[in-house]
């Protein structure tokens, strides 16, 4: 087995035993990138020199007896997270030559943990999209079939992990941007609860749903990375302190109807990080108490029977482990997309106002200030970004605000209430991540609305701020091609460890 194909856990063992060095591991990844990335096109920037220097530093720490789950582990990072001294483009012409002056908090955590940054991955421009075709630079390919998309918006990170160009990767998920590409690429994608991980240094898109999350080869690896990057941050007022997490979880247990909530009682509920490894929770789930909900609105007659079969196989596996499968209803599911595509553009129109051509980003030549704004932004932003800015500007404008933006915010409440009701009965919810496997490049980007409908199963958890992950659920045959498809597990807010412990038994 080549070193770049190792999981984090496997590499950790070998590094600690002195069988391999962090430099060898890093070189194996860099070699694979050099070999394969001209075809798959996952990386916007590769920082080989700094990666090798970081690897040598990690080797010194390991030799000195230093311990740590990610010490010496090479990773890639979605290019909408700030990396000090390294180009950070958001896959936009607007930031084509932008050098981040500071590290995002998650990058800082990973640096301190001794993880090695190999480079920055491609995305839909400013994370606006579901296929990575909206990148201003190039289209990333799905490693399972190069004529297909990797999903998006974190398509570069997903494809890179699937192609073993790194051991793990960071992404961001605003309305499915980690889970859907993880499903398309056949890997594990974790979107944590809103507030679980600091977003300081993540280029803001939709502030009320944006989260940072992970792409890994296994569920156990996701737990290892989460453990390092989670936690409150004074630079992000929406990040949740440990005592708040603990209180929220206690309250959640109390709202259960009788007979439930037993499954997770044994698990560590502190929500604190960097104490015990999340991976150690794997044995703490009492499956005989576990209740899994299947929302009927996600399993309609329109769902591809081949996809349904794979998800039901996951349900059966949970059943064989002792879990009870319960049909639940999330009646407002169909409003998820319209709500999301009003709230998201609205917040985008506000968040992207900061790109004014002054001090950073593309600056046009113009005589007066207003022309300067219009020209800098008109030339710097790509088509989907402009579309969303205008849609949001419209939804927030006088005369339309109540009918569009406020209406969407009200229906958002109903979507959240649906989840709250369901979680009185069940501990986790199981759904398909996407209604289909990866589609062909160019097949859906002719009509923006078609692309928006991609998010049908993933917006709910985002709007409600719930943790959700996509795990591989096998492959289905499409046009003589075996393509991966993912199962989505949604948990109650801040129950990441429990969600991962359940998923680990399925992985």
């Amino acid at each position, binding site marked *: 087995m080549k070193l770049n194909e190792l999981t984090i856990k496997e590499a950790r063992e070998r590094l600690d035993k002195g069988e391999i060095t962090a430099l060898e591991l890093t070189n194996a990844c860099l070699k694979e990138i050099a070999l394969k990335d001209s075809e798959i096109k996952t990386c916007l920037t590769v920082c080989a020199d700094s990666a090798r220097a970081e690897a040598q530093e990690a080797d010194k720490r390991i030799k000195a007896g230093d311990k740590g789950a990610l010490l010496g582990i090479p990773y890639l990072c979605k290019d909408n997270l700030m990396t*000090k*001294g390294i180009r950070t483009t958001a896959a936009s012409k607007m930031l084509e030559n*932008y*050098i981040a*002056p*500071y590290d995002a908090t998650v990058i800082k955590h990973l640096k301190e943990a001794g993880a090695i940054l190999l480079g920055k991955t491609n995305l839909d421009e400013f994370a606006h999209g579901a296929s990575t075709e909206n990148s201003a630079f190039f289209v990333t390919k799905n490693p399972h079939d190069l004529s297909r998309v990797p999903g998006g918006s974190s398509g570069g990170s997903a494809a890179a992990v699937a192609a073993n160009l790194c051991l793990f990767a960071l992404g961001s998920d605003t309305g499915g941007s980690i889970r859907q590409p993880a499903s398309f690429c056949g890997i594990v994608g974790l979107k944590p609860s*809103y*507030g679980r991980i600091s977003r300081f240094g993540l280029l803001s898109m939709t502030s*009320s*749903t944006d989260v940072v999350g992970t792409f890994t080869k296994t569920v156990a690896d996701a737990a290892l990375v989460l453990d390092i990057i989670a936690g409150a941050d*004074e630079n992000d*007022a*929406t990040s*949740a302190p440990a005592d*708040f997490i603990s209180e*929220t979880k206690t309250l959640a247990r109390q709202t259960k109807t009788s007979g439930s909530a037993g499954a997770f009682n044994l698990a560590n509920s502190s929500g604190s990080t960097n104490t015990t490894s999340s991976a150690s929770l794997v044995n703490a789930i009492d499956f005989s108490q576990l209740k899994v909900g299947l929302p009927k609105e996600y399993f309609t007659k329109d769902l591809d029977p081949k996809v349904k079969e794979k998800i039901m196989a996951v349900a059966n596996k949970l059943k064989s482990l002792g879990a009870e499968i319960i049909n639940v209803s999330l009646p*407002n599911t169909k*409003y998820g997309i*319209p709500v999301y*595509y*009003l709230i998201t553009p609205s917040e985008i*129109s506000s968040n992207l106002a900061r790109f*004014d051509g*002054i*001090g*950073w980003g593309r*600056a046009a030549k113009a005589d*007066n*200030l*207003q022309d300067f*704004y*219009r*020209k800098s*932004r*008109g*030339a710097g*932003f790509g088509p989907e970004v*402009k*579309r969303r*800015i*205008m*849609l949001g*500007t*419209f939804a927030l*404008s006088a005369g339309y605000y109540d009918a569009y933006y*406020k*209406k*969407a*915010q*009200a*229906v*958002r*409440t*109903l979507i*959240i209430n649906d989840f709250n009701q369901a979680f009185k009965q069940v501990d986790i919810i199981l759904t398909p991540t996407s209604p289909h496997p990866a589609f062909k490049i160019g097949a859906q980007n002719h*009509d*923006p*609305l078609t692309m928006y409908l991609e998010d049908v199963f993933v917006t709910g958890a985002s709007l*409600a*701020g719930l943790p959700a992950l996509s795990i591989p659920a096998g492959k289905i045959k499409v046009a003589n091609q075996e393509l991966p498809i993912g199962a989505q597990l949604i948990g109650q807010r801040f129950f990441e460890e429990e969600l991962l412990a359940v998923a680990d038994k399925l992985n």
Partner: protein
Amino acid sequence: MKLSAEEIKHIAELSRLDLSDEEVEKYRVELGKILEYVKMLNEVETKKVDITAQVSGLMDVFRKDEAKSWPSDELELALSQGEREDGSLKVKRVL
């Protein structure tokens, strides 16, 4: 919902986006279609429903009102990416 070219130009102006005539026509059709689609929210009764603006659940997150110095290398890197004059960022005349 049908949008006119004038409406699109007005939205573009509010958004400070320079659009070509082709773009105006493209977005006129596309935004109209999207707004037509999201109209389905009107079938939901929401008179008695509170709106959700954020889901953090946190309230009154304050910090001490103290200035913190930004590391000078980061400050320099941040400032170095715009047009400068005498160490300061140069901006166009506002008035």
